[in-house]
C-alpha cells in the first residue's frame, strides 16, 4: 500500500499528488462509506425500533434482513417521480439537493483520524480548515433553506406549514447550539477540528468532563439542539405526521423523497461526528494519556485504522442514542418546543459559556 503510494507520488509529481489525486480518492471513498453508513443507519433504525417495541424488525431480505437497505434503494429508484401540477418546478427540484449537498460537504472537514501515519503521506480527513468549526456551522445552516424551499414549492398547505415550522425551529435551536459550540472553543483556543482534538489530548481530558459542569452542560445542549436541528424525534415537528401528513416532503416521491431522507440521516451523522470531535476526544481512545492502556490504540492495524475504529465506535453510539430517543419520547407540541428552546436552552447555554470563560480567567 505504502509502496504503491510512493510510486504514484514519484510518477505524478508533488502538486498533482497532494492537491488533486489524493483528495479525489479520499472524497470517493468517503462518499461510499458515508452513503453505506446512511443506508445501514436506516436499517439499524428499523431494527432497533423493532426491538424497543418487542418485535423483530425487518428480517426477510437476506440473512437477518441485512439486505433490506438495498431493496429499499432499488424500490425508491424505480418509483414514479411526481412533480405536482402547480408546483414551482425549479425550487421543487432544487430543494432536496440543498438538503443533501451541504450535509455531505461537512464531511470534508471532519477528522476521522490523525493527520499523518508513519510514512507522513496519509491523513484521515480531506482537508483541515483552520476555521473548521465555523465551516461546519455555516454548512449545517444551509440545509434549512432546502426544507423551507421544498415546503413552499410543493404548493400544498401541509408542506408550507412544515417548512415554516422547520424555519422557526431551526432558528431557535441554532442559537443554543452556537453557544454550546463556543464552550469547547474556549477550552481549546482554536477553531480547527484537528486542533480541538489535539487540545483534548494535551489537556488530558475530553471536553465533556472539562470545567465541570459546564463542559457537560454544553455537550448536552449541543446534542439536544442537534436532535432538533436534524428534525428527529422528539423534535420532528416539520414532518409531524399526525398533524401535517408528512410536512415539507408531503408532495415528494421516489428518489427526491429519498434525497430528503438521505439529508436527514447525513445530518444525524454530521452532528454525531462533530459531537465526537468536540466533546468526546475525536479519534483518541478513552484515557488517551494513560500509557498503561496503550494497547487500546490498536497500533498493529495499518494506516492508523485504530483511530478510525475509535472514531466510528463513538459515532455509532451517538446514532444509537438518536434512534433510542425516537423510540422513547413522544413528539413535543410546537409551543413546548419553542418554550424549551428559548426559555431553557438559551439561558443554560449562556451560563455554560460564561462559566467556562470565568474558569479560564481564574485558572489563568
Amino acid at each position, binding site marked *: 500500500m505504502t509502496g504503491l503510494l510512493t510510486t504514484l507520488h514519484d510518477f505524478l509529481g508533488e502538486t498533482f499528488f497532494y492537491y488533486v489525486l489524493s483528495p479525489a480518492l479520499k472524497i470517493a471513498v468517503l462518499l461510499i462509506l458515508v452513503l453505506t453508513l446512511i443506508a445501514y443507519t436506516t436499517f439499524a433504525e428499523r431494527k432497533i425500533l*423493532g426491538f424497543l417495541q*418487542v*418485535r*423483530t424488525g425487518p428480517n426477510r431480505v437476506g440473512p437477518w434482513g441485512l439486505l433490506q437497505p438495498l431493496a429499499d434503494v432499488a424500490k425508491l429508484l424505480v418509483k414514479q417521480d411526481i412533480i405536482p401540477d402547480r408546483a414551482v418546478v425549479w425550487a421543487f427540484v432544487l430543494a432536496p439537493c440543498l438538503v443533501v449537498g451541504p450535509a455531505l460537504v461537512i464531511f470534508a472537514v471532519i477528522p476521522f483520524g490523525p493527520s499523518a501515519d508513519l510514512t507522513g503521506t496519509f491523513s484521515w480527513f480531506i482537508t483541515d480548515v483552520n476555521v473548521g468549526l465555523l465551516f461546519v456551522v455555516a454548512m449545517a445552516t444551509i440545509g434549512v433553506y432546502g426544507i423551507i424551499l421544498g415546503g413552499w414549492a410543493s404548493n400544498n398547505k401541509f408542506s408550507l406549514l412544515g417548512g415554516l415550522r422547520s424555519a422557526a425551529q431551526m432558528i431557535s435551536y441554532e442559537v443554543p447550539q452556537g453557544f454550546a459550540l463556543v464552550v469547547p472553543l474556549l477550552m481549546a483556543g482554536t477553531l480547527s477540528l484537528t486542533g480541538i482534538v489535539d487540545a483534548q489530548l494535551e489537556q488530558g481530558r475530553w471536553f465533556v468532563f472539562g470545567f465541570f459542569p459546564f463542559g457537560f452542560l454544553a455537550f448536552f445542549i449541543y446534542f439536544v439542539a442537534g436532535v432538533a436541528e436534524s428534525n428527529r424525534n422528539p423534535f420532528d415537528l416539520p414532518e409531524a405526521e399526525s398533524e401535517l401528513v408528512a410536512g415539507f416532503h408531503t408532495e415528494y416521491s421516489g428518489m427526491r423523497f429519498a434525497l430528503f431522507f438521505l439529508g436527514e440521516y447525513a445530518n444525524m451523522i454530521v452532528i454525531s461526528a462533530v459531537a465526537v470531535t468536540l466533546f468526546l476526544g475525536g479519534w483518541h481512545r478513552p484515557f488517551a494519556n494513560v500509557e498503561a492502556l496503550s494497547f487500546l490504540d490498536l497500533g498493529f492495524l495499518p494506516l492508523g485504522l485504530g483511530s478510525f475504529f475509535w472514531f466510528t465506535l463513538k459515532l455509532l453510539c451517538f446514532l444509537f442514542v438518536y434512534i*433510542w*430517543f425516537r*423510540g*422513547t*419520547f413522544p413528539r413535543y407540541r410546537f409551543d413546548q418546543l419553542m418554550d424549551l428552546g428559548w426559555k431553557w436552552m438559551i439561558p443554560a447555554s449562556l451560563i455554560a459559556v460564561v462559566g467556562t470563560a470565568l474558569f479560564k480567567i481564574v485558572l489563568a
Partner: protein
Amino acid sequence: MRRFLDKIMLLDLFAGLGITFRHIWKRKVTIQYPEERIEPAHRFRGMFRLDEDRCIKCTLCARDCPIDIIYIDWHQEVNPETEKKEKLLDRFDIDVQRCMFCGLCEEACPTNPKSIWLTTKTYELASYDRWQNLYVDMEELEGWKIRPQYTDDEVA
C-alpha cells in the same frame, strides 16, 4: 425540592430511556406468519361448516342473518325407501365477502348438535378473486373440515 430536581436533572426522561432500553433485550413476540401460525382460541369464529344430514331445512339461519347473505333453496320429495316426505337442499350458499362472523346463524340453528357452525378455526380467507373463493356453496361448506394445509411451495 424533589420536583425541582426532577426538572433540572430530567429524571423522568432518563427513566423513560431506561424502560425502552430494557425492552430491547426482551423476548420478541413476533410470530413469523407463514412459517409459524397461532392456533386460534377454542371458540374462535372462523370459516363456516355445514352438515347437511343434521340440517332440517328450516331456513332459520337465513332469516336470522342480519345482512341476508345465506341463500337456501329446498324442495320436497318422497323417499322411495321409507315412503316418507323429505326436504332436500337445492342450494345452500353463503356470500362470505360481506359476512361479519357474528355467529347469529349458528345460534339460530335449532338442531343439536348445530348443523351450521363457525368454529373451524380457519381464518385464512384471503383470496385473489372475490366471487370464486368468497361465495361458497354447499359442497364447499361441507368439505371444509380442517384448516387448509399448505405445501412448502405455497409457504415460500
